[in-house]
């Protein structure tokens, strides 16, 4: 703690320190006395510009600083993540956008009207909704892993459609899950149901 250090701090806060300031920063980050000086010099500046609040905490290492830094301890160092390998989770924190993923399921399965202009092989529900054999549904849910549904009698494209439909519902479910809230993981159920 020396006068020369304080002089450097003074120049640094004005953006007028000469040369490479790395050492000075290192010192500032680890020396409480220097940080206090940094803090007070800025407080003086705030007073001169009339930007200080009505009351001021006397602790140089303020409550704000303590709470913020304590809170950051539990934060991931997100800022460095750009350079390192990242793992992503689909975000779209839009809770509602996730709902929309599920809404799409609703829409597909209750509507028997298919727009012939849009090739949507996922609208298998039109064929299946009419046939509601519930005991079979129950069986399917219990057995979990099932043989390709009615593949011997159905046209090949129906099976392919159903498969694609299942994929789509599964995908939507993950999409919902991916949002921050972990919401709406029930899309698949609707899909299973619609197989009946």
């Amino acid at each position, binding site marked *: 703690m020396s006068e020369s250090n304080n002089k450097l701090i003074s120049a640094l806060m004005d953006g007028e320190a000469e040369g490479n300031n790395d050492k000075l920063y290192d010192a500032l980050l680890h020396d409480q006395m220097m940080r206090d000086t940094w803090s*007070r010099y*800025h407080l003086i500046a705030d007073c*001169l510009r009339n930007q200080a*609040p*009505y*009351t001021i905490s*006397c602790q140089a290492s303020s409550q*704000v600083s303590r709470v913020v830094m304590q809170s950051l301890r539990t934060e991931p160092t997100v800022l460095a*993540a750009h350079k390192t390998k990242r793992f992503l989770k689909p975000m779209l924190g839009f809770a509602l956008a996730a709902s929309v993923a599920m809404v799409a399921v609703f829409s597909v399965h209750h509507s028997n009207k298919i727009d012939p202009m849009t090739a949507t092989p996922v609208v298998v529900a039109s064929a299946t909704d009419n046939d509601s054999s519930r005991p079979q549904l129950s069986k399917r849910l219990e057995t979990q892993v099932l043989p390709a549904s009615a593949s011997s009698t159905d046209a090949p494209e129906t099976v392919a459609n159903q498969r694609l439909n299942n994929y789509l519902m599964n995908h939507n479910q993950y999409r919902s899950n991916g949002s921050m809230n972990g919401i709406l993981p029930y899309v698949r159920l609707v899909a299973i149901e619609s197989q009946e």
Partner: protein
Amino acid sequence: MINNVTDKQLIERVKKGEKAAYDLLVLKYQQRIINLALRYVRNHSDALDITQEAFIKAYRALPNFRGDSAFYTWLYRITVNTAKNHLEVQSRRPRTSDYDVSEIEQIEGNVALSEQVTPENLLFKDELQATVLMAIDNLPPDLKTAIMLREVEGLSYEEIANVMECPIGTVRSRIFRAREAIDNEVRPLLQN
């Protein structure tokens, strides 16, 4: 007045993962942010909550800070939004219920946002400002002019050197000596 070079260097360090560097930004801007928050809420403790939340939000959003505006401008905006949200939440939710407390805890983990601030810990601005202005008045004219040109007019060292017709090195030490002299008066006040 807004010092981009130092802020930029500090932000770069934070972005490299050096969280401690963020503390210097907090220490630098805290008073101004509390002051800003006090335009939205009356009590000091609410203002502290907003200030803390704003700094934490700013940290989280720092990767998006592109540096095309000053850090303070950006922080200012975050604070204003945080303060407005705070008011919104206050008006929406029943006061004095457990609800608020547990929600805040949920959001912020184990960090108690509003530590008790006892009156003895606080210093009134008037007192501090009077001390600072008094100290400035007692400075030799050269130091006083240098520090006022810097802090109030926001001139660079080079500009001050031009105004005062002296080398930059002289400006650097005049400003430092002025700060040191003021600090000598301020320090005992804070230690009380």
